[in-house]
């Protein structure tokens, strides 16, 4: 209980600290939302009127208190760029980002872990070399390039998948169909690193004394690998996966733009460019909560994978 409360307190402190940083960094960044809204019609007079309407003429501490109060009450306000309720915008977009992140994670696991295991078990063979070349390609290929190549080959040339969109309003099967290419584009990159982590972690475990003991006492190889090798190698893999999931939430922007999908990442890019303070703050809050939640889940999974962590 004490551990959970401690973690909760840390999480709250992290959120408040991060929100303060976001608030300050946005205000300290050059650029004025009122001027952006007015575009090439901007004059000082019009900008002053707008600033007053948006509350941007208030002293910074006052703005910060208003922001904290609104955030704590769940009122993120109105988007400056989109002239729409921020909560409404996020509610409309988060399912697309969450489903993309989950599907990408699935792709990461389905490709990365088997590839890493194969490379570790067949160390020094052609299979090991091939697996590592594939992972090197994945790590070094920029996400947008991977996305464009996937679109060109599988959507344009073969016509198996749609080029763009998320299948909005077309049913679950259609939406899954639209999800394939973006999740592969995002997931393949992290799969590469997971494969490398799996390989090195498994190789380290395979050289341990207890592996020799397990084999010496006559356990079948499959059982040795499953219960003694893989389980012990799992903690670093989980750590990498947890890290990736956090990144996926924020880093989905590239896939969302190239595949023209709705999503939080794309919204965040626009919000920052527009100096859309309310939307940026709200999105970062959502990402923070997402990352904290994923970290919590990862911590719990560590304990399941390794009882020593649970006891500690």
């Amino acid at each position, binding site marked *: 209980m004490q551990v959970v409360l401690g973690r909760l307190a840390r999480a709250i402190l992290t959120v408040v600290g991060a929100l303060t940083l976001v608030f300050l960094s946005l205000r300290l960044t050059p650029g004025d939302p009122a001027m952006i809204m007015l*575009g090439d019609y901007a004059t000082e007079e019009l900008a002053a009127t707008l600033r007053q309407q948006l509350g941007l003429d208030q002293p910074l501490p006052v703005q910060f208190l208003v922001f904290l109060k609104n955030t704590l009450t769940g009122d993120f306000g109105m988007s400056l760029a989109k002239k729409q309720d921020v909560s409404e915008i996020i509610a409309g977009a988060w399912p697309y980002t969450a489903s993309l992140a989950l599907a990408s994670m699935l792709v990461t696991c389905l490709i990365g872990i088997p590839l890493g295991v194969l490379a570790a078990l067949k160390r020094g063979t052609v299979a090991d070399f091939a697996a590592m070349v594939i992972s090197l390609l994945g790590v070094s290929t920029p996400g947008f390039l991977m996305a464009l190549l996937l679109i060109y080959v599988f959507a344009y040339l073969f016509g198996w998948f749609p080029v763009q969109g998320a299948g909005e309003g077309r049913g679950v099967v259609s939406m899954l169909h639209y999800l394939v290419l973006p999740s592969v584009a995002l997931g393949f990159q992290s799969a590469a690193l997971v494969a490398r982590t799996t390989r090195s972690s498994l190789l380290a475990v395979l050289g341990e004394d207890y592996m020799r003991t397990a084999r010496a006492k006559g356990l079948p190889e499959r059982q040795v690998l499953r219960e003694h090798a893989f389980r012990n190698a799992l903690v670093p893999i989980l750590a990498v996966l947890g890290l990736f999931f956090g990144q996926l939430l924020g880093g989905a922007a590239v896939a969302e733009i190239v595949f023209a999908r709705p999503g939080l990442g794309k919204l965040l890019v626009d919000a920052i460019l527009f100096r859309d303070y309310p939307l940026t703050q709200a999105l970062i809050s959502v990402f923070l909560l997402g990352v904290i939640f994923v970290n919590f889940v990862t911590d719990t999974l560590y304990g399941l994978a390794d009882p020593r962590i649970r006891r500690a």
Partner: protein
Amino acid sequence: MLRSFTSPPETVSAAVARLTRRRFLSLAAATSSAALLAACQSAPAAAPAKPTEAPKPAAAVATQVPPTAVPAGSPAASPAASPAASPGASPAASPSPAAVTSPAGPAPAAAVASKPGGKKVYKLAVPGDVSTMDPAIMNSQIDFQIAEAILNFMGRYTYDPPLGNAITPELAEKWEVSPDAKTWTFHLRNGVKFHKGYGDLTAEDVKFNWERIKDPKTASPFKAEFDGSTITVLDPHTIRIVFDRQNPAFVSTSLAFRPGFVVSPKAFQELGDRWKTGPIGSGPFIWDTYQAGSSLIMKQNPEYWGTRPKVDEVQYRFRVDEKAAMLAVAKGELDAYYLSDPDLLAQVAKSTDPNTYFLKSNAGQAPFTLWFNTQRKPLDDIRVRQALRHAVDNEAIARDLFGGLASPIHSYLPPFMFGYSEDVAKFPYDPDKARQLLKEANVPADWSPGVIGHSTLLISRRVIEAVAGYWNDVGIKARPELVEQAVINQKTLPKDFDIWGTYITRIDPSQITAPYWHSASPTNYSTFKAGDDLIDITRTEPDPDKRIKAYRDLQNKISEECSAAFIVACSEGILVNKRVTGLKGAGWQERHPWFDVDVPAE
């Protein structure tokens, strides 16, 4: 050939600005565009028409012929009483026909058969997103394009190529203006209904829209156009506006532009903050479903008072990647994509993909202007400004940098616009003369002017980097400072710059004359003072011929003073799937063909 564009030293802000996603994307374009172009050029040799050929509007395309139209420059004529004003005709006040050219592109026949009983859905994508559907504060092209489908103007510019200045009556069936051009009376069309049961249009509705623009609380950029006016409803279908000044271009400047849209006051007040996600107008399409930053669906208005559009539904996709969007058009998932990257524009213009065709505007919609801050030394010396203009080869920039999809310019007005003049002081490319002038003006060898531009507008980046390269060649260490829109106005309004450049698209010359060249305007960036008298004539003189003369004299004077450098007017372009018919061009006006565009039913 174009001279080498050596990059001058960059500021931190420029360097930061360069590390944007778009910049990164463009660096990788060399690899990814190879695949893309393979897709766009995989045509059989015999199939396509040359993209650079002038188009012949498809015979099958039915052109909406408005009942009457009035040249924008002829305010004194009531549209109903304007016999010469047919669309496509060259009205007296319009530029000469030679100044405007037809947009390029083939006239495709719909190759895909319509499915009986199916729905016609026109799917298009644009690089940005909707900002607002409130016409009083609207300032983006994308908003304007969508608003033209959802809302009605009082009068609408005609779109039949070549680009013209004629205005078709829309919500105002006809209008009269007093001989002194101070009093305008508008007679509204009967039977115009707002969407979703918000009632019939009345003069009170128009008054509400105009009064909102006048209200300082609205912070409307169009407020000045209604200042000093008194608005009176004469009867439910007649409204009068009386100005305290002569205002001969009221319709062409205001009522056929963003302030001319009319929204339902009842809906506007009822919806409040929800207006953005459900604007109510009386236009040919109804706003249906919107996903912020992603998509919009508009459905045909079954109660539309005028000619119905040919498509049942329009689907917009926002914030898309250009290369992926091009593949989507080639595959048929999208019908049209509005290109913004000049590199892609030039590549697509040469594409021979049998599934697509390319439309461009020839007239040069967006004149790129570089304002010199004449309050700063040594730019206060006219010889320095002349040197800056002599140092730049506009023709080479247009030809080599934009693949021929831009025209060299020497004036602040684009060639299609009312009052445009070719007869202005020109500064031909002559680097030796530029060096000589700089020497005469004793310009310090270490003078290093900053050149501000938008980092996110590819055309801006391209032109500014090229121009800086030319200036470096004559010994001026120009520094491009490419920054975000968020920072631009903070530098330009207080005149905290040496040189700054951008392109501005408007429809009437008055919209880019007084705001940028009148001494009282805060956006007179080069502090030009010698044209106030002429500008006053352009704003108040009822005789269109006299206004044209004033515009021409003003253009010459601005050019003589070298208050700014005018570089190129860039064309715009659309990549279109061959199943689409009715698109007439890609220019500022032709790109909103809501009544003419057609696709097969599916």
